[in-house]
């Protein structure tokens, strides 16, 4: 078993779920996570040398998600017909509400809070994935949590304490 396969296996669950959160669609998240890992696999010699291969693959995933968002509303309307009915979900009401609240966050806040608090990436890796300064990550996560706190009474430990 190669180390790139190990990397893919280890990264997959959190990557696919994070992108599912970010896209508000688990199927899209999985599809994009597969693609992001394939890109890592294809250029593993270079990716493995990066300070954080994980941050790289998250960055690719986020970019792919943004590409999806650009698609026209016309296509969305048409493709909605192809979607598996929502009744198959087994998520609880709270889970659905949390996903909806995360989906309603501004795009960069959403990415920051999911990568930092769900995928548990270090601030530096989130900053690399979002192509911003660590201070910006802290600011984005604070703003996101402020909004979520409103709905879910979330207790938050400051970034400095983590």
């Amino acid at each position, binding site marked *: 078993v190669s180390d790139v*396969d190990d990397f*893919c*296996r280890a990264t*997959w669950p959190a990557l*696919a*779920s994070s992108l*599912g*959160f970010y896209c508000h*669609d*688990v*199927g*899209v*998240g*999985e*599809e*994009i*996570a*597969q*693609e992001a*890992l*394939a*890109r890592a*696999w*294809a*250029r593993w010699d270079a990716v493995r040398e990066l300070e954080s291969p994980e941050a790289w693959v998250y*960055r*690719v995933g986020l*970019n*792919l998600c*943004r*590409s999806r*968002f*650009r*698609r*026209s509303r*016309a*296509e969305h309307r*048409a*493709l909605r*017909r*192809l*979607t*598996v009915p929502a009744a198959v979900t087994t*998520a609880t009401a*709270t*889970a*659905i509400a*949390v*996903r909806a609240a*995360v989906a309603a966050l501004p795009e960069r806040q959403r990415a920051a*809070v*999911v990568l930092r*608090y*769900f995928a*548990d990436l270090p601030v530096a890796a989130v900053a690399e994935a979002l192509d911003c300064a660590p201070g910006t990550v802290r600011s984005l996560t604070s703003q996101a*949590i402020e909004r*979520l706190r409103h709905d*879910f009474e*979330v207790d938050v430990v400051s970034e400095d304490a*983590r």
Partner: protein
Amino acid sequence: MNEITELLRDAAPTPSELDLDRVHREGRRRRQRPRRIAGAAAVVLALVAGVAVIVTRDDGSGRSVSVPPATQPEGSTTVAPTTSTPATTTPPPTSTPAATDDRLSSTSRLGYAGLGPITLGMTLAEASQAAGTPIAHHPPGSCNAEGTAYADAVWPPAAGAPFVVFGVSDDRIVTVRVFDPSVYTLSGIRIGSTEADVLSTYPNAQIGRGIYQNRAVRITDAQGREIVFYEDTYDTPGTVGAIVLATSRAAEEVGGC
């Protein structure tokens, strides 16, 4: 544990198993791309040098047709359907209308090169001219986070009609997404064809899942272009609900990865 972490973990969508084989497959395809580009460059050089090169046009079924590229513009390529021996024994559906590729119409055919007279890589102006009708932006051009212009163009522009969406990046067509049941592929598959039809027509097709979790049957050519047949799981399960042609995932590369 921080409560926000706990909250997110409880709500997280649970992904299915990683398809590592697919990662390998897609990864290998990406590794091979530079060599394919070099091959394409060689063909271009040969054309510039005036060498008579016959480009084989094929939509993945094994049936291929020869098109003399230097004698006509790429956008008005006329497909002669019987110039080579079919590689499969499956005949195209007898009800398939004859292709008329001189103008974009409901009888235009979809292949790896494009749809009828519209080929991947055309500008919108070229595509409109080839189509003989304006192909309109819908919605008007927008920008993604990286500031790269991106827009979709729709044909026909009339609201409510069955339609085709051209994904446009940097003013060039990079994807063709067909929702019009009157449009066939070169081998006779269309919206409403069954998955069995697709698989018998394209024996090398691969079955996977689409971005909306629905089944997706994918065929790919040597240049990495792919045509994906998405299942209509909602209205008529087991049949094709959308057909998407893409150039080496060019549409997804626009994000700058």
